[in-house]
């Protein structure tokens, strides 16, 4: 019965109800999209790192895994690694930022093909000239590129020679020597991938290598991909926290205003309920139930909107952003929305519950 009243009340003011639900929906989408982007992009990076097919990654001393490191390892290290026990193959890359979250990676194609089994070309083929560029399908679609197109990166024109399936190392690759020249890092590498003859020996090999090169950062690829998590990206957890905080504030304000006006316009109804013997708790219950219903409807809408935002991202900028749908966060975002809404409803509910019945009934 009380639920009937709650639903009837919400239906009585459809525009206010829809706007409240929409606002909570946007609040929930905001959280879910951010989390989905964070996890999506990290997963994408992890997938590309695994796609290289290596067992160990080596980086220069003092670099951080999550930030770009300039090319600072001497290329001669490759020969050293190649001579170590169990190391079957080595491939060195140079990574260069080109703004935003995008990077260009310089590779030696032969070396890379040996370690990874090679790119799968959707169209075109390997580098033939120093200014050739290989991009993955997402990047090609986003920038409307086809084989033979010209791309301007780092103030230079490049010719697209191949478009490949995504998921290996990087979205944009160019010949290593060209990038080393451009970045002023001739003979230097950002990272070295090692492939072992027996992957089961990975940990022993890392231990042995660390004894010889104690300052260098070495991770198994498994370890590396497990490090691609929200908590390991500097500032990301704090950023998500701030967005969640803002979401709670938005939910609080929307529900506060919505329920406050609802309670004001229902002064007389509250008086009637009290004359019928409704306790303050009963009145409180009605307001809170309405609030929870609004928040749950908003959460559902927010989840649906998340699919919309993912579709938008996939359609417009598939190469720059990857949004994952994270169902594990649905109940969390829903609970946050309900929590913010309940705080917002607190004052209106209290005001309704302690309303004097006679005053309410003489109110016209």
């Amino acid at each position, binding site marked *: 019965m009380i639920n009937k009243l709650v639903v009837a009340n919400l*239906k009585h003011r459809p525009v206010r109800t829809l706007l409240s639900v929409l606002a909570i929906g946007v609040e929930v989408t905001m959280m879910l999209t951010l989390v989905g982007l964070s996890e999506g992009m990290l997963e994408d990076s992890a997938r590309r790192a695994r796609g290289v097919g290596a067992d160990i990654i080596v980086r220069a001393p003092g670099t951080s895994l999550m930030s770009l490191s300039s090319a600072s390892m001497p290329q001669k290290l490759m020969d050293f690694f190649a001579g170590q026990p169990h190391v079957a193959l080595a491939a060195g890359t140079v990574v260069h930022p080109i703004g935003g979250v995008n990077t260009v990676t310089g590779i030696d194609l032969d070396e890379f093909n040996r370690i990874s089994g090679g790119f799968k070309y959707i169209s075109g083929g390997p580098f033939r000239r120093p200014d050739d560029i290989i991009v993955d399908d997402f990047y090609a679609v986003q920038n409307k590129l086809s084989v033979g197109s010209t791309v301007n990166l780092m103030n230079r024109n490049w010719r697209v020679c191949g478009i490949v399936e995504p998921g290996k190392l990087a979205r944009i690759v160019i010949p290593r020597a060209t990038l080393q020249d451009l970045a002023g890092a001739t003979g230097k590498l950002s990272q070295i991938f090692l492939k072992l003859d027996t992957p089961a020996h990975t940990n022993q090999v890392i231990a042995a290598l660390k004894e010889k090169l104690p300052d260098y950062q070495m991770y198994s690829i498994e370890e590396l991909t497990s490090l691609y998590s929200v908590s390991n990206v500097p500032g990301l957890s704090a950023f998500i926290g701030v967005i969640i905080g803002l979401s709670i504030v938005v939910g609080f304000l929307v529900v506060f205003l919505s329920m406050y006006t609802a309670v004001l316009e229902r002064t007389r109804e509250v008086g009637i309920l009290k004359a*019928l*013997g409704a*306790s303050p708790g009963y009145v409180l219950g009605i307001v809170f139930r309405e609030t929870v219903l609004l928040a749950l409807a908003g959460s559902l809408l927010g989840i649906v909107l998340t699919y919309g935002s993912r579709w938008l991202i996939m359609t417009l900028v598939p190469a720059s952003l990857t949004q994952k749908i994270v169902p594990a966060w649905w109940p969390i975002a829903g609970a946050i929305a309900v929590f913010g809404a309940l705080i917002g409803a607190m004052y209106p509910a209290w005001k309704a519950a302690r309303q004097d019945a*006679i005053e309410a009934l003489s109110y016209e």
Partner: protein
Amino acid sequence: MSNGELVIQARDVRKVFRVGDVEVHALRGVSLDVRRGEFVSVIGPSGSGKSTFFHILGGLTPPTSGSIHIHGKDLRAMSEADRTELRKKEVGFVFQKYNLLPTLTAADNIAIARHIAGTEDGDDRQFREVLGLLGISGRLGHKPAALSGGEQQRVAIARAIVNRPSILLADEPTGNLDTENSAAVLALLRDLNARLGQTILMITHNPEAAAYGSRTVEMRDGRIV
């Protein structure tokens, strides 16, 4: 009927409202006995304290002094929670207008009173009996806005008595109605009183309406004369 048990026993009830520095003496010593099954009409000029007296009887507000027993329960000793309980079980209210919850249908307006009292799942016979007396069985699915004033008042009366209260307090129930609708509402009250033995107190300004009651008391300046 007048030798039934005492349902209302009010002795020297006073009510003083303080508005800023001014004291308004709304009730100046009201004493009244009402027995089970009586239909009492309360008349008197505007401002004589009729509504205030009803609000006290119904536990909407406490008296300043004096003693009141409803069905043997002492109102003076009641906490806010006790008065809520009293409104739930012992008294039913009908007001002059805007009695119904506008978002619910007539039937649901009645049902919510049962829900509040916790008698929802109880015997449905009394519910149907009341609905039968209303004479608007075909319009119970409508919302208040689609009902005439008389129909709304009859629904409000049904809601007020659906939990079988000891007393029904009706404050000018026909004050807002035309002659025809007034007659229907008054007839309903008379039926309830005659057939179910419902004890009723009704405030009215209209002598014709007052004549429906079995007894009339008059208030003036906060007293019964």
